[in-house]
């Protein structure tokens, strides 16, 4: 009833308007339905891509390095990357950022679109890559266009082409590139010295706070940990650092794979059918050819379960197809294969962990005022270990990799998180890796909370988690075509499906692997602490004695110190003896040794391990002759 009335009123209204009759009109706001260009959308919603105020430069560095690494790895080229970040105009907050690589480059006719048009990407395939969305570089181009009058300068050299140079800007309203200038670069003006390559230089308006600056340093040094085969040079106003290439091994490039049927939906199914449009293939054929783990028989079974009549594949309507999708969701398939994933791998991560770079900012006070100087320092750990799990998390094959670096030059606890080889630097607190670390007890390392807190009582940590007292770096790498990020900013991973379970088992496994070594490291630390205690307390003891009785206090002091050192080292051999008497322990030891040796693919870089295992062997021998308590050994 009511609806009829309204239509009548409306009809009347329209008539009245047509008749130009003056009656009181309701305020009607007319909604315009416009289409927004992709570029405009992303510029207006730059937070979606992480480009917010403070983080513009950080995100730019990130996007450029990720693009460069991807474009090298696609053709198995050992990456050489040169990143430059310099202040151009401090008054107007203008920065020049440039990134040069030796990757595959972009064919010259595709350059303007690939650089400036949003949602254009060579990466829209089912395999693991760093970038996915075709947004990053475009964002830099758009911001440069929006905030400055500088063109984006691009050099590109792709296979079978010579070097081209472009001046580009983005037409933000239409998502189309504007090519201001294009030329074929002559040899003497060439910027790209490798066979192929790509260089981009942009001027951006941004502020750089010290915090963000440190994040950029962290980002680059952590990138170098998981990409030790890349040579990365980083140049800023503070100086220049180079992260050397520490290995020639590169991970196997990921391959494109077919989607897994349990991940099927109406869209993927229709797309598959569309692909076979002109080939007169049956639905059964399309299914078995478009999805992995889907045999012909299996496809037949599914179609019969769905109760679909036989007809040309493109004649099925959506109501029929959804039944196929539903059946697939309820059918068990083999686990998806992982060819499309590219884990870092034990060898490469171990190289990264044993040569972990950290950027140091030295402040030098010269006559001309304070000058800062960047330099990079390698932190060599005493031991490392690696473990990984291949698993299926909410139907997506996922690889969890976990590594540990302990002791040596490592001074404190740190958690490193990577997703598809990208370091995650923000929101650590809400990351699943945090939960994993607090839920896996350190007793799996064969050490107790009490021991750790005793030996590292001086460590200042806000956390009461015992593991954070240890000088240990824990690395987590999750790779998947779809990482369950918690937020659009892609900075922390949610605990989705069984991911946490697999991460926990991976970490527990690692803890067990290193238990014997950590115990020994802890013992060393204990000895060190003890020696220090003696050093501090012996003067008190000697003083008390020498004030009370006549005694040569120097001699007493020296004798006491010697005694203490012998005592501590003697205890050490005793402990090693116990470890070696335990046969299980021995096996464990062998395993670790093997791991370590196999890690040492490129020899000397891992020499630390070898020496440690050597120490072990020799102390094992010593123990045979020196079983007695040290006080008797010294009593000759």
């Amino acid at each position, binding site marked *: 009833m009511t609806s009829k009335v309204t239509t009548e009123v409306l009809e009347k209204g329209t008539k009245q308007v047509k008749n130009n009759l003056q009656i009181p009109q309701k305020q009607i706001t007319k909604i315009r339905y416009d289409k927004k260009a992709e570029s405009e959308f992303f510029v207006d919603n730059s937070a979606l891509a992480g480009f917010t105020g403070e983080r513009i430069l950080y995100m730019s560095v990130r996007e450029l390095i990720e693009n460069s690494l991807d474009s090298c790895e696609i053709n198995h080229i050992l990456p050489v990357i040169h990143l430059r970040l310099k202040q151009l105009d401090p008054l107007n907050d203008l920065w020049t950022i440039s990134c040069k690589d030796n990757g595959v480059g972009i064919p010259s006719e595709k350059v303007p679109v690939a650089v400036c048009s949003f949602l254009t990407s060579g990466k829209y395939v089912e395999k693991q890559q760093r970038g996915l969305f075709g947004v990053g570089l475009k964002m830099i181009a758009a911001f440069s266009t929006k905030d400055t009058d500088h063109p984006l300068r691009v050099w590109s050299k792709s296979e079978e082409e010579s070097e081209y140079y472009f001046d580009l800007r983005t037409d933000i309203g239409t998502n189309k590139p504007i090519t201001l200038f294009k030329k074929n670069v002559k040899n003497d003006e060439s910027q790209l010295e490798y066979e192929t390559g790509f260089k981009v230089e942009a001027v951006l308006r941004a502020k750089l706070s010290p915090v963000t600056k440190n994040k950029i340093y962290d980002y680059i040094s952590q990138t170098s940990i998981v990409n030790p085969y890349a040579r990365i040079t980083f140049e800023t106003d503070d100086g220049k650092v180079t992260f050397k290439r520490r290995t020639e091994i590169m991970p196997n490039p990921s391959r494109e794979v077919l989607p897994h049927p349990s991940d099927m939906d109406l869209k993927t199914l229709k797309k598959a059918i569309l692909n076979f449009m002109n080939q007169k293939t049956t639905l059964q054929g399309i299914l078995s050819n478009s999805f992995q783990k889907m045999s012909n028989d299996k496809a037949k079974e599914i179609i019969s379960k769905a109760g679909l009549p036989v007809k040309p594949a493109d004649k099925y309507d959506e109501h029929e197809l959804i039944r196929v999708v539903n059946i697939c969701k309820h059918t068990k398939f083999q686990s998806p294969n992982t060819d499309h994933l590219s884990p870092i791998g034990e060898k490469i991560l171990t190289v990264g962990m044993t040569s972990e770079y950290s950027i140091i900012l030295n402040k030098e006070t010269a006559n001309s005022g304070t000058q800062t100087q960047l330099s990079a320092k390698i932190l060599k750990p005493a031991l490392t270990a690696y473990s990984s799990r291949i698993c299926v998390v909410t139907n997506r094959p996922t690889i969890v990799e976990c590594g540990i670096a302990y002791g040596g030059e490592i001074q404190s606890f740190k958690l490193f998180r990577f997703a598809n080889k990208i370091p995650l630097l923000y929101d650590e607190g809400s990351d699943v890796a945090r939960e994993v670390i607090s839920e896996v007890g350190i007793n799996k390392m064969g050490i107790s909370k009490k021991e750790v807190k005793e030996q590292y009582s001086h460590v200042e940590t806000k956390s009461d988690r015992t593991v954070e007292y240890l000088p240990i770096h824990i690395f987590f790498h999750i790779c998947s075509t779809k990482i369950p990020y918690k937020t659009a900013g892609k900075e922390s991973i949610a605990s989705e499906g069984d991911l946490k379970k697999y991460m926990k088992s991976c970490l527990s496994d690692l803890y067990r692997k290193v238990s014997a070594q950590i115990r020994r490291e802890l013992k060393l630390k204990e000895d060190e602490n003890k020696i220090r205690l003696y050093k501090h307390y012996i003067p008190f003891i000697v003083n008390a*004695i020498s004030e009370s009785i006549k005694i040569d206090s120097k001699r007493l002091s020296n004798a*006491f110190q010697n005694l203490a050192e012998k005592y501590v080292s003697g205890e050490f051999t005793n402990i090693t003896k116990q470890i070696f008497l335990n046969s299980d322990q021995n096996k464990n030891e062998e395993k670790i040794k093997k791991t370590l040796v196999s890690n040492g693919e490129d020899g000397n870089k891992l020499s630390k391990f070898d020496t440690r295992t050597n120490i072990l062997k020799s102390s094992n021998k010593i123990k045979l002759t020196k079983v007695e308590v040290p*006080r008797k050994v010294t009593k000759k």
Partner: protein
Amino acid sequence: MSPKDKRHQEIINKIRKIMKNVGDDVLVEGIMPSLEIPKVGYDNTVWSDEKRMLTIGNKTVQIGPNSSKKIPTFAQYLVMANAIRKLLDEEMESTIRGMYYATLSTVGDEKNQQKFWSGQDDSDDAIKAIELLTNVPREEFAVTSKPKGMISGPITLSVGGDLIDCNLGSRATSQLIPTNIRDLEIVNVKADFVMVVEKDTVLNNIRKSGFIQKYNAILLTGSGEPDRATRMMVKMLNEKWKKPVVIFADADPWGLGIALRYKIGSESLSYDSDRLVTPNSKVLGMMFSDIDEYNIPKVARLVATQEDLNRANDMKKKPWLQDKRWKRELNLFLEHKEKCELDAFFKYGFKYLADTYLPNKLREAGVI
């Protein structure tokens, strides 16, 4: 040399002997030195039927710099021993707090700096260790604590030659019991008996009522946990001056514990019981049974806390508290879960405690 100086020299020699042994271990023998000290605490406390008090057992602990925990302790003991030697050398005296300050310093380098003592408890423990090592009570080191015991009544003390009459006629104040007992002598005692109460507030009330004059008694309190001087004073009055001693404390496990310190001794000072414990003293109140017998109004009774109950249960298990009387009292407490302070009698009037309750109890016990 006066006899006291001679005693000093003896102690100094004892300390030097300890130092010499440590030095010889390191220099001559080349072994880690170690101090053997009688263990103090529950598991080395033994009831002596003959002495009717707690005594120390045979267990000992080795304190040597052979474990990282004991390195600081070992150094602390030697430093304290040396400080005591200095104190005796200089013919000075000090409180335990004074000793703490005298030995205060920091250990370690800039990176790992810490305090030599983490608090006075540490240095008190070290003083105790030297007592045990030398078998000399700390009063003879001239190391004392702050006086807190109080005494009133017909008794004359001599402190370093100064005569002090504790029968202060005004009823308004009491005399602190000096802790430098080496200088303390009892000159004369005219009282018929000695009454020990737990708290100074109660003592003040009783004194003000004229109890001392009426019953010719000495009133004494340790103001809570009694210090050594107070315990020794009680013992001397009982054993040397043959005065009966009665004890009144609050009707709760802590009060009973304090009363028993006088009568049987304590675990932490079991090594010194011979000087401190008065086995002939009588604990007369306040008994848990008194709460009902004297019909203390509900409002003046306190509900036992979990801590009280735990403590009572602990006490029940101690082998030296298996006497039927204590067991009955503790069971009564655990059953009723009520405690009561002596002050509760004030509910019946300010003079009730001194005029009615105490005389009743004393008559029952045949003291008056």
